[in-house]
């Protein structure tokens, strides 16, 4: 009942946000991109969306692979739907509906006349060309976007969660605990992230969860200062005292009273944290200490593009434009949120 009731000041903030057109548009574009990227297999994939063969319908996009024998072909590995479509287009045995981009992010298309990399080719459906290994750049760009978004969001959720927990405890209980945690966080902040990742990468192969773990390990301290200050301020207000005088538990006071009054900085940080997360992942991938090859990633594309710039400039172009655009959109949202959630603009206290 507390959660679903939109507070007037929240409404005012959302209204102000909706008046900042640049931020609003950026928000909707990114939301659309993110939602679309969740079902990316339906847009960009070497698997067909729909196959009709001998009166039966198949939806190969998700689930286990369908061997070529399913459709009367002579091989037992996964069906090549593009070839299947071409064959059936001639003899009319069945019908294949391919996604917009008929290539997967891991697939090496070596069927072109020239050796990869190949420049953009609309006929073949390689709209942004292929990379050094003949993989479709658009497919890798979009799958890389999804990985980066999910990674940054997971990073934001875990670092914020830990930061809120520790920061709230510091602010609420204060005293010796606060003092010791402050010193700990100060020391912790000086851990060099890059060295840590280099060392860890030397010891084991980095993967999504290890990388996330390391970045959380060094990044959880960011939120603690903010939350500590927020809770420290809120708990000294009379409404918190009133709750205590009624015999409310610490948990109730922090969770129901103080945290809802301290959400603005948590939300306002989201877009900037996404920028930071994507930036971190991209640069680690660029340096070669990020996600393991062949995970689709912008950093890896950037490096390839840089190496092959002399003879394949299109490889560098796409991830550069994509990175700049996405980070710019997030920054626009961040600006608008900061502007519209500014407590000086919407406040209930004189």
């Amino acid at each position, binding site marked *: *009942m*507390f959660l679903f*009731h939109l*507070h*007037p*000041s929240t409404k005012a903030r959302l209204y102000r946000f909706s008046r900042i057109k640049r931020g609003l548009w950026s928000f909707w574009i990114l939301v659309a991109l993110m939602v679309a990227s969740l079902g990316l297999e339906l847009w960009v994939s070497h698997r067909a969306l729909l196959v009709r063969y001998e009166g039966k319908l198949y939806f190969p996009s998700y689930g286990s692979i369908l061997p070529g024998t399913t459709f009367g072909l002579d091989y037992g590995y996964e069906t090549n739907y593009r070839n299947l479509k071409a064959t059936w287009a001639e003899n009319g045995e069945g019908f294949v509906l391919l996604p917009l981009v008929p290539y997967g992010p891991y697939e090496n298309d070596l069927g072109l006349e020239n050796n990869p990399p190949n420049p953009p080719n609309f006929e073949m459906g390689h709209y942004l060309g292929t990379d050094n290994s003949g993989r479709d750049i658009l497919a890798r760009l979009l799958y890389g976007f999804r990985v980066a978004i999910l990674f940054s969001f997971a990073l934001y959720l875990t670092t914020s969660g830990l930061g809120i927990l520790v920061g709230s405890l510091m602010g609420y209980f204060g005293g010796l605990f606060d*003092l010791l945690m402050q010193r700990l966080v100060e020391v912790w902040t000086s851990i060099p992230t890059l060295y840590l990742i280099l060392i860890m990468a030397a010891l084991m192969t980095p993967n999504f969860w290890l990388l996330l773990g390391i970045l959380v390990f060094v990044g959880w301290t960011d939120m603690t200062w903010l939350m500590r200050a927020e809770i420290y301020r809120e708990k000294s*207000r*009379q*409404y918190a*005292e*009133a*709750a*205590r*005088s*009624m*015999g*409310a*538990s610490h948990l*109730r006071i922090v969770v129901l*009273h103080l945290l*809802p*009054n301290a959400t603005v900085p948590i939300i306002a940080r989201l877009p900037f944290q996404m920028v930071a997360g994507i930036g971190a992942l991209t640069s680690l991938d660029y340096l070669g200490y990020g996600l393991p090859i062949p995970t689709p990633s912008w950093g890896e594309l950037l490096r390839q593009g840089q190496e092959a710039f002399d003879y394949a400039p299109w490889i560098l172009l796409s991830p550069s434009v994509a990175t700049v655009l996405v980070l710019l959109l997030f920054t626009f949202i961040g600006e608008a949120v900061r502007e519209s959630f500014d407590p000086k603009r919407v406040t*209930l*206290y*004189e």
Partner: protein
Amino acid sequence: MTRPILEVKGLSKAFAVKSGLFKRTQGWVHAVSEVDLQIFPGETLGLVGESGSGKSTLARLILRLIEPTAGQVFFQGQELTGLGHKEMSQKRSGIQMVFQDPLDSLNSRWTIGQILQEPLAIQGTLSHPEREARVSELLSQVGLEPAMKQRFPHEFSGGQRQRVGIARALALRPQLILADEPVSALDVSVQAQILNLLKDLQEELGLSFLFIAHDIHVIRYVSHKVAVMYLGRIVESGPAEVLAKNPLHPYTQALWASVPNLGSPKTSSSPLPGEVPSLIHPPGGCPFHPRCPKATAPCLEHRPGLKEMAPGHFVACPYS
């Protein structure tokens, strides 16, 4: 003689002043020192004193929102100091507080209905519909419309907000209400309404009040007994009429003289010289001696205790 509903014995609080990297204690602020007081059922004790005299701290010590350094608090004969967190939480329903700033003391993200239900949700065993009914009852008790439940605190005027604050304090059917400057944030015209509301509620529900104010008019209007605080100590206490007519402590006399009076044209009252001394380094001897017109050599050495000058009238000054 009836038993006091609240009895405070030797209550003291000293706050440590800390600074430096490891927060070493540099000194102590003696906010409240060795306070004794009693409140009887159905009675209002007015606590008066200037800013920083420890009035609000005293109220918070009674409710253990701040832990006392020394002394005891008895509520209905049971000692509150020393109770565990859980037992204390249960005891709190008997003593409730009305806060100074009605806007700050209501959670701005909650509706009035949510705010008034909270004490019932924390303490009570009432079902949801019963709580809703109780909220409506409380709102009409303090002169607000039950339909106002849906609204948020910022949609109300100062006086209405303070009514909500009073309704919240009443929710758990307490016997004692600690009112910490409940009207000092309000307009004078609204003050009178709130004071009358409190008086009516006292009559209706048989409540006892510890009423804190720095406004002497307010204190005289609501109190049966009055205690005067200076530098964390009670310097004079007694029945309201006696204190109004015959203040004995030089500080009380100065305080009373500072009140503009329409009836008597004589306004030759000279303000007290000097400033309130530091609580970190309170003056030795009588805490009032640096500003006292009657101070003599022994006052610098020896702090006078409270002496009963007339039945129920206590004064901490040998020259009264």
